[in-house]
């Protein structure tokens, strides 16, 4: 059945199309170039509408143990935000930490067709995928966490052959069904278990004798040589620490040109100037990002209101518990593998610190030149829920709205930020890069994030409303795999998205040493630690898409 989307203004940066009026044809879930005499089965007249690929969120905590701990911890987040069952959709809840089904529907209703869970612990991978399986409509994938797990740290500490380290990285990606690898507070989660309370970039882990710098460089090089498209996804040392900007700049320098992705960089861009010893380091970070083409970032914008932070960074979250609001929190040490910290937060616009965090995020957006290396995130739910994206887009596209908002926040904070001097307004083309084309390219999703022939027909159609918040909150039409799933911001059909994975090659001989290791020390057998493809497929409820990787080097 051939579907024609007629006369929309198309923003398709991957193919260099900037607002041209074009027709798009869909057949069997793909964008096609039909024969001139092909029969059109259905036509949507999209004159005056804005057409983009479906949105892709490259960093959103929507599935896995810590998210469900947050859900359990915060019934007050859900009460008043319940969603009733309909003939099409299931019931659910949540403002900042929605239930799985509700999260899937809300992404789709916002014109997003994929979201990636960025902090899947190997030990918790099965649960993360179970939760993602219960997140309908959107495609998903997950980044597996390495860098505080005992096996990797002992490899590093014993100066294991680099090829064996790569085998382990690749094996873990297979075992956990991951598309990328993340490090969280490199080595720091483990160090906290040994009662170290901070771990700077060049500080040694008391037991393994390795530094975060060693860990970052090893994983960055390992992934590059494995041919994994998404570079090492780094939640750096010293998250949220005033002065953390120095660590961030040193991390960029320390990458030695290797590709790296620095995530929720807003939380790592704090200086120590002024009476409060808290100031913006955004200008320096942006300058470094602009100068180093090997670096990509996402922002982790803070949005005002109540949220619940959920992070793998047990070390830093333990410190953050002092600011917990309400005063309850969970910190966990997990399986000699990783950890987590779940701490509710309320970001207040009248608070100096919170207002400055907000300003720093916006500064980063406005000062980084290349939208292909900058992705729009709130580090959901850590800076705020993903449902704030339309508001954030308006802040970026509409400087008078931004200035209006700036007047409502703590005014002292603005003195320590360059935000009041920035006049940049994002274009629709740049928004399309930051929210679809860029993440797709960075994650190596070969047929997503664009509207060229052969692409998966994940397409969002917006009314060209000058109020960009209203425009992006309520798309007119959303197609997933060529099927109309949302009309005027409401679900009209529920489908199941796929799970994207990447599978770099490894020497299966590594399972011999892993088998002994698991038998000796773990409480789970290696054979049961691995997730099978059948688990993801689950009798047809799910599906797997194996994204290509480059050739492995040595």
């Amino acid at each position, binding site marked *: 059945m051939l579907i024609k989307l007629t006369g929309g203004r198309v923003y398709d940066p991957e193919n260099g199309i900037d607002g041209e009026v074009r027709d798009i044809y869909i057949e069997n879930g793909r964008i096609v170039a039909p024969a001139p005499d092909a029969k059109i089965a259905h036509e949507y007249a999209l004159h005056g509408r804005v057409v983009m690929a479906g949105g892709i969120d490259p960093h959103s905590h929507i599935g896995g143990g810590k998210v469900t701990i947050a859900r359990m911890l915060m019934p007050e987040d859900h009460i008043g935000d319940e969603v009733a069952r309909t003939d099409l959709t*299931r019931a659910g809840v949540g403002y900042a930490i929605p239930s799985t089904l509700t999260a899937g529907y809300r992404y789709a209703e916002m014109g997003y067709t994929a979201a990636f869970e960025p902090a899947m612990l190997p030990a918790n991978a099965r649960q993360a995928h179970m939760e993602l399986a219960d997140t309908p409509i959107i495609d998903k994938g997950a980044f597996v966490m390495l860098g505080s797990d005992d096996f990797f740290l002992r490899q590093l500490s014993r100066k294991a052959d680099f090829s064996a380290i790569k085998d382990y990285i690749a094996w873990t990606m297979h075992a956990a069904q991951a598309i990328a690898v993340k490090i969280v507070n490199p080595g720091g989660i483990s160090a906290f278990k040994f009662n170290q309370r901070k771990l700077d970039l060049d500080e040694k882990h008391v037991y393994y004798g390795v530094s975060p710098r060693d860990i970052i460089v090893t994983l960055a090089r390992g992934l590059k040589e494995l041919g994994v498209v998404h570079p090492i996804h780094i939640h750096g040392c010293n998250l949220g620490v005033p002065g953390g900007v120095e660590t961030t700049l040193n991390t960029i320098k320390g990458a030695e040109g290797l590709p790296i992705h620095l995530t929720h960089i807003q939380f790592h861009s704090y200086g120590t100037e002024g009476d409060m010893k808290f100031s913006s380091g955004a200008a320096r970070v942006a300058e470094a990002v602009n100068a180093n083409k090997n670096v990509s970032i996402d922002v982790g914008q803070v949005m005002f209101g109540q949220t619940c932070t959920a992070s793998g960074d047990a070390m830093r979250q333990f410190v953050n518990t002092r600011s917990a609001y309400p005063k309850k929190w969970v910190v966990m040490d997990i399986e000699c593998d990783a950890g987590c910290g779940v701490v509710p937060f309320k970001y207040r616009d009248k608070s100096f610190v919170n207002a400055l965090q907000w300003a720093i995020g916006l500064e980063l957006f406005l000062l980084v030149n290349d939208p292909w290396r900058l992705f729009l995130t709130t580090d959901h739910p850590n800076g705020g829920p993903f449902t704030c994206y339309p508001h954030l887009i308006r802040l970026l596209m509409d400087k008078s709205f931004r200035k209006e908002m700036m007047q409502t926040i703590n005014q002292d904070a603005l003195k320590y930020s360059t935000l009041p001097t920035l006049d940049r307004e994002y274009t629709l083309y740049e928004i399309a890069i930051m929210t679809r084309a860029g993440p797709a390219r960075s994650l190596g999703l070969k047929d997503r994030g664009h509207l060229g022939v052969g692409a998966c027909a994940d397409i969002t159609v917006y009314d060209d409303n000058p109020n960009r918040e209203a425009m992006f909150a309520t798309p007119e039409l959303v197609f997933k795999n060529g099927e109309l799933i949302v009309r005027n911001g409401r679900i009209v059909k529920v489908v199941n998205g796929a799970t994207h994975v990447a599978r770099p090659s490894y020497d299966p001989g590594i399972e011999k040493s892993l088998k002994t290791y698991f038998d000796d020390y773990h409480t789970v057998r290696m054979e049961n630690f691995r997730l099978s493809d059948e688990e993801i497929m689950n009798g047809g409820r799910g599906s797997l898409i194996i994204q290509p990787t480059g050739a492995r080097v040595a």
Partner: protein
Amino acid sequence: MDSEKSKNGANHHLNVACPFCGIVCDDLEIAPTDKGLKVLRNGCAKSIAAFERPLVEPSPQVDGKDVPLDEAIAVAAQLIKESRLPIFGGLGTDVDGMRAIMSVAEKGGGIVDHALSEGQYRNFRVLQSSGWVMTTLTEARNRADLFIIAGSDVHKIHPRFFERIVCNEMSMFSDAPPKRTVVFLGEGLDQSAAQGPRIGEVVTLPCKAERIGEIVDAMRAMNKGLTIPGDMIGGLPRAMVENLLARCKAATYGVIVWAPPSLAFPNADLTVQAVSEFVKDLNSVSRFAGLSLGGNEGAVSAGAVCAWQSGFPLRVSFASGKPDYDSERYAMSRMLAAKESDLLLWLASYTADLSPPETDVPMILLATPAIKPTRTPRVYIPVGTPGIDHAGLIVRVDNVVSLPLRKLRQSKLPRAADVLASIEASL
């Protein structure tokens, strides 16, 4: 998978996960014999009893009369349709079974609660009001130098906990790991499993379980520099309590273990909270963590799936179409006692321990044939056991690790998830 390859030409299963307690050991070796399945290695009393149960495949029944499965499903659906407020309880099932329960409870406008949630709520209340610092099985196994077993008969609930987590001879962090101290805080606890080369001192502090909160609060106060008067604290000589505090402060990585089902006294959540707050305080200087056990009969999976799908850990009502949460009001035992429900669907697919409650509320029973109800249910549908009769997934007690359960034999017993999906389709 290698582990599923047959050995000796038979269906000899290695690395089998056992769902019959919350620890979910996954190192069992099981093979078929002419009398049924036999646990060859790493069994315990619980796993042997359950895996070696003979296969019986009774017929579904309506009002005590054998009927085809379709008919039982149709009657069950009719009962749910006619019910004003059904309870979907028991919930001894795997992840897919729980997913199916959530879906049918939503459509049927009912309440969801697990048979053992009273114990779980001793923890959930603390989580929802103040939180904690917790650890997991592998972490404790390799790292802890001090275990405090608080008021819980762990050995009875989890027969292999000590063997696997406390008495293990190997540790990731040392070829000659130091000996461990095990403190039993509470009277009448089975200490027999705390022995072997890894175990150093075993300390017995025989207080009443109800007074553990008081003792821990006193330690917390003393740790903050306050003075506690009197020679006795919580029924223990003061010196014993001071000594325990000193051990806690000196530990490299202390772990305090409790099993909520054991803390069966009023307001036991306050004991869990006292322990959790004490652990938080200790962490300002050194490392210490809680380790909560229990979670038998699929309770952890039920709580987790319910939380990720509805936002709330059990005791949710879908009567209005929206998830409505009230941990008091929607407690199954209270609702049954108060006759606030007119239908109970009871799901129990693991062991005979999860018999349906004594109630005259009409019942749909989806259960392992090991359960013999004392009263004839309106509808009885025997179901398979996850990990024996069909494959499945289960969440372990630490709420981090999940394990795959395997089909070990051919049986006609259906998966609860499939029965529930058929019921839902007829609603």
